[in-house]
């Protein structure tokens, strides 16, 4: 379980996170929803200790993040985190070199699934394929938790569909996933929980099936209620 507890963070004078709390469980897909600039990416960076927080606490399976944690949790930012001059195969070698949790079979499987050519240089890939490689580098790690920042934004519809397919496959199964989006439509049926965020605070945190069952509302319905207030 990833626990984000009352996290506050300032960038200069701007309060980016304002006592934000939520939890994300293993085996569930938790979606952080909010318009751009409400602190979704900052939360992910804070979880990964890529940016300091002013107060609060973040725990991963009850522990603060340590170097060993990076074999247990990974972050897929919205840009690729490999050098552009590297070939895909070289990026794989880099990952295999440093991560115990790198799973080469899975990487190969994903390569086939996404129809990527390992001899291609990252700099030469199309936008959609870059996003896929970026995704792949995270998915091929045998980690318990995956954080993905806007995996669907800015890529063509077919790449989107392929990436969406990943969410319903064994590649995600039993892992804890946190994803951010400002566009819920594509993935409404894929997620377990939705966490609505605005101005660095959680406005509502709910199970999407429960809300559909008990209130007959879609995620968008809830968003409308919450954000109109």
């Amino acid at each position, binding site marked *: 379980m990833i626990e984000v507890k009352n996290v506050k963070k300032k960038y200069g004078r701007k309060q980016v996170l304002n006592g934000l709390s939520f939890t994300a469980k293993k*085996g569930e897909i938790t979606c952080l929803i909010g318009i751009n600039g409400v602190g979704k990416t900052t939360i992910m960076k804070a979880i990964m200790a890529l940016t300091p927080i002013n107060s609060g606490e973040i725990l991963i399976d009850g522990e603060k993040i340590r170097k060993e944690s990076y074999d247990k949790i990974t972050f897929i930012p919205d840009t690729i985190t490999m050098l552009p001059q590297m070939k895909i195969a070289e990026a794989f070698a880099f990952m295999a070199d440093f991560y115990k949790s790198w799973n080469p079979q899975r990487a190969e499987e994903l390569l086939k699934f996404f129809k990527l050519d390992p001899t291609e240089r990252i700099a030469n890939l199309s936008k959609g394929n870059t996003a896929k490689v970026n995704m792949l580098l995270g998915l091929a790690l045998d980690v318990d938790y995956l954080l993905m920042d806007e995996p669907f934004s800015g890529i063509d519809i077919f790449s989107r569909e392929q990436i969406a*397919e990943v*969410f*319903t496959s064994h590649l995600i199964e039993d892992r804890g996933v946190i994803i951010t989006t400002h566009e819920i439509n594509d993935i409404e*049926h894929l997620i377990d929980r939705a966490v609505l965020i605005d101005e660095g605070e959680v406005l509502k945190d709910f199970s999407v*099936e429960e809300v559909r*069952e008990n209130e007959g509302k879609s995620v968008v*319905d809830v968003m409308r209620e919450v954000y109109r207030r």
Partner: protein
Amino acid sequence: MNVKFNNRDPLYVQVIRHFKEQIAKGYFEPGQEIPSRRELANQLKINPNTAQRAYKEMEEQGLIFTEGNMPSCITKDDAVLKSVREELIIEAVDLFLGSIKSINVPLSEVLELVEKKYDAESGEAEESK
């Protein structure tokens, strides 16, 4: 399988309904193996936990059964299968009656129209074959 789900009803309920329709249509035969929950999630592009929930409910309703570690199968119980069909028919009729009643049409007129339309559509279907 390409199913259009709406966003307001619980997904698992919609999945069960989808299964019932398939059974009523005869697409699923009694005792037929069904996809694993992961396969189903992948086919329908839904969350695997939702697929799991749907299977659990269907198992409780006796629509499907699982023996040991085997894949789940459609029930062979005729009574259940029949009731699925009836349930769907009754549901459709209820829906139909609801909309008919709201515009105050006498039953005889409606039935006549229904028969006429139904025949015409069946005929068209025959021709197009």
